[in-house]
């Protein structure tokens, strides 16, 4: 469609001020937090479900792709418009619509920031559990699109376990409701399909989230180790003992150094790894459980276990973990964060192989990982101005995906496939598996209006 006509048509729907087309804007909305870059044909800011529906209808009629965008903090390229089209910007549809304490649900607009939602319901004594490290900047619908995880998923699960319903605009502008405030609505688990669909099935214009009462007590501990294996073995032993901590997070020496340089939270820079453990529940027995955890750490040759004595100490420990990714930007200008998952007991093996891959491609790799879930985040450090290095980075990333897939794991635990991991899909899915997924796409979006080129590899020519 002719550019002028497109802009005119969209301006009629949302108003001229809410259609952005300058060169500056097109550059600004071409990137996200991944290494991918696209270029939209324009940016549109809808203010309501109705406007979203009209924009989508217009886009479909004129064969213009639609790429949803929140804060653009995803790590796999989900919101970079690699095939052009309309970048549909949801940051201003950000209201918290209803805090329904009685029903333990909170209904929000897609652009509401995850941490803001938590703050709002926190006032009533409730929690929304998923806590991706980007939570202070990310929009909730972005979390939905990627099925974001975070440090607390060992006990409480991921975004998909806490999104119970959504209002969705389909490819032809039709508005449907999937799920709702109640559980077990008849029909397919469409909320379950929407979560993690990376903007390829529908535009979410309302979300219904589960909120849960605060637990009575929480105990946060930092365990310091001379080897990564000791930390990983501690995790295995804690699980074997039948405990379900809310968190079991680890980071390696390279990461510790970067975090200290950035945040000065008191992590020891000569430790091989640190393990962050958190327990929650009633206060009865909490001390005994803590003692048991400390005993397990000691059994695994821990150097020191620090138990946070108050909220301030607890926050400091967490600040170090939450800022870990960005902090490694001090070591080298860029990083590529991988996101594979392996069965927990094979973590030490996977990490050892990651070290080998780093050596093979001559790239430093810092490691942060959700030790409880077996979800590792090897951060490959490099300088994108060095084209040769960038090439080695992509090769290393692919190999990391492969060794994890071979261990019975998966290529993405929480950041999504986007553009970046398309190559890895055949490592874990057969053509038949992908064919089934293509049917899902066709059921929702038969004309491929939404986020083309993402999540599913291109269909091979017959």
């Amino acid at each position: 469609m002719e550019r002028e006509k497109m802009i005119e048509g969209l301006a009629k729907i949302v108003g001229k001020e809410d259609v952005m087309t300058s060169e500056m804007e097109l550059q600004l909305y071409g990137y996200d937090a991944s290494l991918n870059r696209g270029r939209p044909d324009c940016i549109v800011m809808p203010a309501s479900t109705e406007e979203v529906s009209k924009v989508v209808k217009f886009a479909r009629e004129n064969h213009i792709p639609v790429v949803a965008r929140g804060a653009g903090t995803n790590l796999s390229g989900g919101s970079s418009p690699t095939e052009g089209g309309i970048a549909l910007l949801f940051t201003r549809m950000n209201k918290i619509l209803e805090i329904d304490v009685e029903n333990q649900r909170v209904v929000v607009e897609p652009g509401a920031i995850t941490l803001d939602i938590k703050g709002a319901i926190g006032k009533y004594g409730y929690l929304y559990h998923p806590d991706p490290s980007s939570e202070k900047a990310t929009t909730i619908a972005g979390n939905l699109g990627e099925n974001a995880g975070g440090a607390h998923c060992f006990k409480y699960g991921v975004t998909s376990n806490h999104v119970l319903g959504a209002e969705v605009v389909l490819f032809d502008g039709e508005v449907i409701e999937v799920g709702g405030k109640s559980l077990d609505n008849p029909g397919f688990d469409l909320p379950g399909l929407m979560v993690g669909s990376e903007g390829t099935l529908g535009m979410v214009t309302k979300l219904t989230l589960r909120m849960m009462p605060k637990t009575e007590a929480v105990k946060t501990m930092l365990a310091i180790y001379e080897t990564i294996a000791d930390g990983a073995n501690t995790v295995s032993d804690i699980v074997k003992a039948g405990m379900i901590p809310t968190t079991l997070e680890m980071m390696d020496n390279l990461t510790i150094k970067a975090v200290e340089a950035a945040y000065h939270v008191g992590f020891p820079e000569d430790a091989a790894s640190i393990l962050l453990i958190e327990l929650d529940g009633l206060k009865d027995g909490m001390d005994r459980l803590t003692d048991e955890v400390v005993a397990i750490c000691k059994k695994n040759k821990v150097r020191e276990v620090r138990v946070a004595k108050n909220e301030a100490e607890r926050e400091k420990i967490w600040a170090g973990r939450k800022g870990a990714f960005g902090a490694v930007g001090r070591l080298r200008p860029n990083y590529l964060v991988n996101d594979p998952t392996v069965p927990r007991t094979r973590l030490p093996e996977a990490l050892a192989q990651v070290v080998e891959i780093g050596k093979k491609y001559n790239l430093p790799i810092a490691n942060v990982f959700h030790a409880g879930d077996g979800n590792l985040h090897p951060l490959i450090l490099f300088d994108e101005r060095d084209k040769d290095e960038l090439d080695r980075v992509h090769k290393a990333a692919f190999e990391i995906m492969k060794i994890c897939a071979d261990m019975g794991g998966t290529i993405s635990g929480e950041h999504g496939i986007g553009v970046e991991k398309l190559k890895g899909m055949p490592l874990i899915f057969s053509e038949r598996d992908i064919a089934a997924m293509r049917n899902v796409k066709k059921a929702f979006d038969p004309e491929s209006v939404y986020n083309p080129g993402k999540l599913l590899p291109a269909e091979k020519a017959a």
Partner: protein
Amino acid sequence: MEDKKLFSKNTGENIYHCIRCGLCLAHCPVYKEILLEEAAPRGKVQLSRCLEEGTLELNEEVKNAFFSTCLLCGSCVANCPSGVHGDHLFSGVRWRAKQKYGIDWKKKVMFQILANKWLMSKSAALGGWARRNFSGPGIEKKIKAGALSVDRIPPFNKKAFAETVQEVTAPKSGKAKAKVLYFHGCATNFVFGDIGNAVVDVLSKMGVEVTTPKDQGCCGLPVFLSGDRETSVNIIREALKIFARADVDAVLVDCGTCGAALKNEYPHLLKDLKELGENVTDEEIKAAELLSAKTMDVTVFIDAHKDWLPKLGGNGKKIKVTYHDPCHLVKGQKVSAQPRNILKSIPDVEYVEMAAAGDCCGGGGSFQVEHAETSAKITKRKIDNAEATGAQVVATCCPGCNVTISNHLDPAKGMKTMHPVQLLQMALNR
């Protein structure tokens, strides 16, 4: 001019450390209101990159993004996990924009005045005289300067502070425990004389010898941040001549912005300019580094030497006091505990922490005049938080924040703004 490099190598390197994580979006007060990528620090860093790499032209729209959607508060710098100095990049772009587009003539005049001490004192005297004689609540109530209500801007000092203070104020008693230079800045000089008096009074009661150089001028930051680096270099040279001295224990400031200028900006700017081929000498850079090392906020000095304070008295009537962290102090210089310590140590003060005390007040110097709508939204959040504490006094260490906050507080609540040193002075004089 256009074929000159956009950034020095050192500053330009920042661009490549931005991994676009987007965490800065959570800390930028302007992004919070506007919710567009150009208003985000990440967006401006990426635009800086486009400009540097030549994939984008510095046009009106880009220039406006850097001026109208950025307070240069430093919140992004303080919170960037990768340590990207967005502020250096953004002020660099402002400089190039100023070179291409010039500066608004009103601002040009203003900066020339700021840069010239004689002009400044004469203009202030004239302005104060004019306001006292020709203005009046009736007229002023109807005028707004951007987001500021003119009738609520504090009056000019009858006489400039520099004219009323002694050049050297001896310690109240005994030998001098320390010798300091007092950089009072424009605001204290022309508007907040009371703060200047309080600073000198408290320090001398602590046994400190205070030298207040008569011929000091503006720190230059307003000029520098608007992109007029040429004018600001002259201002800096003047300041270095007077204040870069190894023989004093400290150079004290009562304004967070002046502090950031002397402590952070002078060395960085001079180094940058030298690298870009401007006429800056190594000696000048050394002097700037010396001054930087000596500079500290007056609250930091007082807190570090609190045992020098005489006994603080009270009259038994508690007043609720809350504190607002000026951006240039808390983010630029990482000072947040010391002003609070001072307030908490005063017997008559009941200290109450406000929500988001470290969030920007939205003033941003001239920002609140030129970009009133955005500024007012940010200020409203600060006012709501301040008023929610029920405090009678909002203490802060920056005259800019002082003016902005006092301008927007609900008059019916009777709250006022003060510098912590003023409250300390009251306690010392009981």
